């Protein structure tokens, strides 16, 4: 691994975009722009932008708090207020943050919501989360119930149901809050921008099929999905960011370079891994280091599909603006049944020629975690590639046991090494 660490231009670009967004949020009440809290899976960013609202994503704030080592305090605050230690730590982190003044990741106070846009996609907890926030903020909730794809298909009745809710619930509430009429042409324009960015994101993610992979599709991937999964999908800024990212990744691939890590690029890829499940945010760097120290590169991940499964062909369709939003919401990763999830991971292992796969079971997230051990066995049977199972949490540091996880991963990588060398003894992983 090289010692010199170069920040690529796209990284700075994303940082600037986020900073500008939080600046807009900080001045929202001054400028009169309306603020809509919503979730990443099934987000209706283009629709929100068509009403000139500013999106806030509580789970992004929570993960940022986790990365900044603030989440433990926020969670403790929420638990002192009566929230159970058993439930989702994103929720408790958000509520604790609110109780402590709602200071966002940039150190600026986040504005209160004018509307809670509850896109109930792939996660039961979202519903309770916004019921809890509604009590605090006393603002309206626009509920968008997205049926679960239990058979791996978005049935016409499901699409129709979601579209009807967009017409009768979501759009009228956005109109009421903003005082603006729905502009379908503007929505089409924004959706057209989305398609361009989506194409480039897929190109970037699929670059990992190359050997060596120029990207890490999990630890790096969470940065790549940032603009498209949050406040920027549909914007010219997102289009530009993804074009820039694509060019950088293409250049790395052309030069045969590996992914960039906090300690420099990986030049000699040793293991290619697929990961199922979200990362742990409180020890993100430490967790990542356990992989890059072993020169293990994540070539595909399911977490980078929670805000849209674009690599299976979905693109927003500007010609069918509401239908396409419905199909998008229905198709987010955690809204897919277990068999489809198994199918996707098997596909990743084969298409990306992975040595194995890791499941990071998250204490907070039953949507992801319930059934992962059954998935593990099914994937191993289908692919013959070994799986590894670890347990951590999103933003509660009490559930990240570094030594246990490191031991488990070292044993796993050792086993992969033995397989690579035809079962010959190898040195224990460092």
């Amino acid at each position, binding site marked *: 691994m090289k010692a010199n660490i170069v920040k690529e231009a796209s990284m700075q670009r994303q940082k600037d975009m986020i900073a500008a967004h939080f600046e807009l949020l900080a001045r929202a009440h001054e400028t009169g722009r309306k603020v809509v809290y919503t979730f990443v899976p099934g987000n209706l960013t283009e629709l929100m932008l068509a009403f000139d609202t500013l999106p806030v994503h509580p789970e992004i704030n929570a993960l940022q708090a986790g990365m900044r080592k603030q989440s433990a305090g926020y969670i403790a605050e929420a638990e002192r207020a*009566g929230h159970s230690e058993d439930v989702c730590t994103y*929720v408790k982190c958000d509520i604790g943050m609110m109780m402590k003044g709602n200071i966002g990741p940039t150190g600026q106070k986040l504005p209160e919501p004018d509307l809670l846009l509850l896109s109930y996609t792939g996660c039961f907890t979202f519903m309770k989360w916004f019921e809890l926030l509604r009590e605090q903020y006393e603002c309206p909730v626009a*509920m968008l119930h997205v049926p*679960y794809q*239990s058979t791996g298909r978005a049935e016409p009745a499901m699409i*129709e149901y979601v579209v009807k809710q967009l017409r009768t619930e979501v759009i009228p509430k956005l109109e009421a809050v903003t005082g603006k009429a729905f502009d379908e042409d503007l929505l089409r324009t924004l959706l057209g921008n989305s398609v361009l960015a989506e194409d480039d994101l897929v190109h970037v993610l699929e670059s990992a099929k190359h050997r060596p992979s120029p990207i890490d599709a999990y630890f790096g991937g969470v940065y790549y999905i940032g603009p498209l999964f949050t406040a920027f999908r549909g914007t010219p800024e997102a289009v530009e960011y993804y074009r820039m990212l694509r060019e950088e990744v293409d250049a790395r691939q052309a030069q045969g370079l590996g992914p960039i890590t906090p300690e420099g690029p990986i030049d000699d890829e040793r293991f290619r891994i697929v990961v199922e499940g979200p990362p742990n945010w409180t020890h993100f760097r430490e967790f990542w280091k356990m992989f890059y120290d072993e020169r293990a590169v994540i070539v595909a991940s399911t977490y980078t599909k929670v805000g849209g499964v674009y690599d299976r062909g979905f693109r927003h369709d500007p010609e069918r603006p509401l239908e396409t939003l419905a199909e998008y919401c229905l198709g987010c990763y955690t809204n897919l049944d277990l068999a489809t999830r198994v199918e996707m991971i098997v596909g990743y292992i084969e298409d990306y020629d992975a040595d194995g796969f890791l499941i990071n079971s998250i204490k907070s997230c039953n949507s992801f*975690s319930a059934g992962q051990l059954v998935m593990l066995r099914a994937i191993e049977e289908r692919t013959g590639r070994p799986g590894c199972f670890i347990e951590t949490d999103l933003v509660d540091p009490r559930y990240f046991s570094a030594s246990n996880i490191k031991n488990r991963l070292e044993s796993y990588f050792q086993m992969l090494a033995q397989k690579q060398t035809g079962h010959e003894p190898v040195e224990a992983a460092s």
Partner: protein
Amino acid sequence: MGGPVMTKAELLARCEELYEDLDLTSVREWKEQNPGGRAVGYLPTYVPREILHAAGVLPVGILGAGEQLEIVRGDACFQSYICHLPRSVVELGLSGRLDVLDGMIFPSTCDVIRNLSGIWRILFPDKYTRYLDVPQNFAPEVGGAFYEVVLRELWSELCALSGREPDDEALRAAITLYDANRKLVRELYDLRAAEPWRAPASEAYLLLRAGMVLPVEEHTRVLAEYLALVREEERAMVDNARVLLTGAFCEQPPLTLIRTLERAGCDLIDDDFMPVLRWLGHDAGDALETDGDPVRVLAEAYLGDEQESACRFVPDGQPKGARLVETVRRRAAEGVVCAAPSFCDPALLERPMLQSALDEAGIAYTAFKYAENTGQMQPIREQAGTFADTIKLWGDE
């Protein structure tokens, strides 16, 4: 449970036998007596049992294995931090105890039960498995229209399983049968609230549990017999604290826990055990007189129901906990026991909102967690005893 009229003790003993029978012997017997009949299991919290009945299918409520089964294979399917119910349901399935069932329905209660539908498809690929989405939008032309499609699909699939054709008359008859059942369930709850010593929760619970496995016609007879018996019976009035229990709508507490609460001085005068038995709080069949489409009647009964559940979105303008507070007042309860299963997202995320509503209303409450296999009752007995004493000593202040 046909045949000669039973004494109350015999009736309860039979219900307890059904409660403890993890092999679903009564369902096997029903299938023997009804050749070609099908039985389909369902998980909490709500499924439209009328649809199953109309398709010639016996609905069988699967509520886990309680404290009676050692979990081995079920544990191998789940991570550390998850409620107990899915572990024991998988254990029941993998141990062959559910073989008598021709399928399973998993309603949209939470992410765990949702994903359990996927686990079931992987573990039991030859069995009929259905995830049932109920609407969270309650406008008839939006959520209602969607739910009608869901119900018609479900009906069609179940009819394919049983070899019948969907028949509106059969569904109308089923709605009427379940209305009659719900009416007696309501009477049982009303009696508990009026004279809790006459129909203690531990007895009522066994009667209700029988409704998970018995055909509805038989369960209705059981309820009627019990109500007739206890209304006539001389039973000493007990001056316990009148409390309402909330949070136990999915994974059930062990029967010993309910008995422990009673022994600690709490009369459970209302609860949310097995909400499927009284989800539709009104007679859905009334609408059959004006609407000829029984599927629409069933869908609109669901939409219009006033049930407050952690699994059901509460639209703007309907404060969370208002229904709980109203029930406390209507039932003249003196306090609330918030009893939720460990790691139950719906109940535990809901709890702070309910407690806030109780605080505002000045209603006393106590809270604890349990699992279906909770064995240590002493801490719960002490907590509940203290709560009951507090109500009795200072309840008027």
